[in-house]
């Protein structure tokens, strides 16, 4: 049985559903801070939206190396979806300093063309929130996924999530987004080689941005070749299931001028239609939710460690250093301690 919602949670949820941006912003703050009250508000909000069949936002993840043009691309995507009449929520994650814990969140700078609505005023159909990664290493913050669910429940038809600038292994976005747009660019051939192994496996749509620069065709060819190799390896299976393997689209864009954006939006629409028609959307989201729950569980277990008898961890660590114990044994002892 879900816990009964507190009156304050219901009140906050109702404010958000009435379009109160400040209440929504507060909820995201609470989720990021790990405030239990925020979890209650999210439950009330999603419960209310689910009852009227409103939990249907398309969640688009945009990821790629620093400087590849993710924010500018997002800016253009916001405008494109606004032109279709959809309200757009954006979560933009930037890294926190491992030293001071502070952060400079600068993605909003490049998203201001879209923020301005027709007629020069501000567009009330766009909600942009910058998040600091706060020590998380997967390219997102602790509560990016929960915040995306909040935006969805608040009635934003498209939720765009921009990750921190990534390298090889930041793939949390794959479990959050319905569609992952993997952005690369020419002139960084070595980077492309480097990211091929990990991150290149999570792209649902590949974008070679800054395609007006020399070498963009080569990057497109390399990505296609990689996808074709993968498809060939899977081919037998696909044929037996009665279909040919379908390659992910590889598109060229110049985000700065908007070139290639209509094609990108078409590719995202096609993917979204297919996810819905095939029923894959629900299974993909369920896998993502399970992974998310596991990571919160791990965090919860680590928080329990702080409640153990003082000095236990340090004592074990010294025993390892002195050669009296192995690290795996120490982990077993800590595990037993937090289960008590």
């Amino acid at each position, binding site marked *: 049985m879900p816990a009964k919602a507190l009156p304050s949670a219901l009140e906050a949820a109702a404010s958000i559903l009435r379009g109160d941006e*400040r209440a929504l*912003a507060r909820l995201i703050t609470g989720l990021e801070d790990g405030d239990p009250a925020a979890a209650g508000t999210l439950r009330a909000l999603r419960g209310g939206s689910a009852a009227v069949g409103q939990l249907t936002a398309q969640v688009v993840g945009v990821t790629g190396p620093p400087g590849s043009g993710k924010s500018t691309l997002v800016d253009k995507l916001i405008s494109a979806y606004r032109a279709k009449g959809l309200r757009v929520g954006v979560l933009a994650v930037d890294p926190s300093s491992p030293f*001071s814990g*502070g952060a*400079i969140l600068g993605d909003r*700078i490049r998203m*201001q063309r879209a923020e301005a609505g027709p007629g020069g005023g501000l567009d009330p159909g766009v909600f*942009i929130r910058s998040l*600091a990664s*706060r020590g998380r290493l997967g390219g997102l913050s602790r509560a990016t996924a929960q915040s995306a669910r909040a935006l969805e429940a608040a009635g934003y038809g498209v939720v765009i999530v921009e990750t921190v600038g990534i390298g090889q292994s930041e793939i949390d976005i794959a479990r959050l987004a319905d569609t992952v747009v993997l952005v690369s660019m020419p002139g960084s051939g070595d980077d492309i080689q480097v990211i091929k192994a990990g991150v290149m496996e999570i792209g649902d749509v590949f974008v070679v941005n800054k395609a007006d620069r020399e070498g963009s065709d080569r990057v497109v060819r390399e990505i296609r070749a990689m996808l074709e190799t993968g498809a060939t390896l899977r081919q037998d299976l696909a044929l037996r299931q009665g279909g040919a393997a379908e390659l992910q689209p590889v598109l060229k864009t110049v985000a700065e001028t908007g070139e290639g954006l209509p094609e990108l939006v078409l590719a995202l629409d096609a993917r979204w239609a297919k996810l819905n028609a095939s029923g894959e959307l629900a299974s993909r989201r369920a896998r993502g939710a399970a992974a998310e729950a596991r990571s919160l569980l791990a965090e919860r277990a680590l928080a329990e460690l702080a409640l153990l008898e003082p000095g236990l961890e340090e004592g074990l660590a010294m025993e390892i250093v002195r050669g009296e114990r192995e690290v795996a044994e120490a982990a077993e002892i800590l595990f037993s301690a937090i289960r008590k």
Partner: protein
Amino acid sequence: MDRKIRVLVAKPGLDGHDRGAKVVARAMRDAGMEVIYTGLRQTPEQIVQAAVQEDVDVLAMSILSGAHNHLFPRVMELLADKGASDVLVVGGGVIPEDDIPFLESKGIAAVFGPGTPTSATIEFIKANVKRR
């Protein structure tokens, strides 16, 4: 709970550069704050929308052009309209001493002129931020 001070550093008006604002933003980052920076030539409407959506504790505005007596009070009005008067608002840039009492009467908590050590601004924020 992990509560960080969130600050919006904003440049209202038509200033041509933002060196000072960037230095302050960097100092705040190094003091453990989360700083949202939105660049040059922001309207009061844009600034207030960003402050609300980003749910900041502090709004730090820098202005060099001399339009502070118009733009700062306008931002305060819009914040009040949005029910966000609990945001701590501070100013900086090139602002004559004589104008400070007027700005303070409009709700600007403090004005930091040229030559203020960044540590003074940070100490002020830490001491005066309204915890929710």
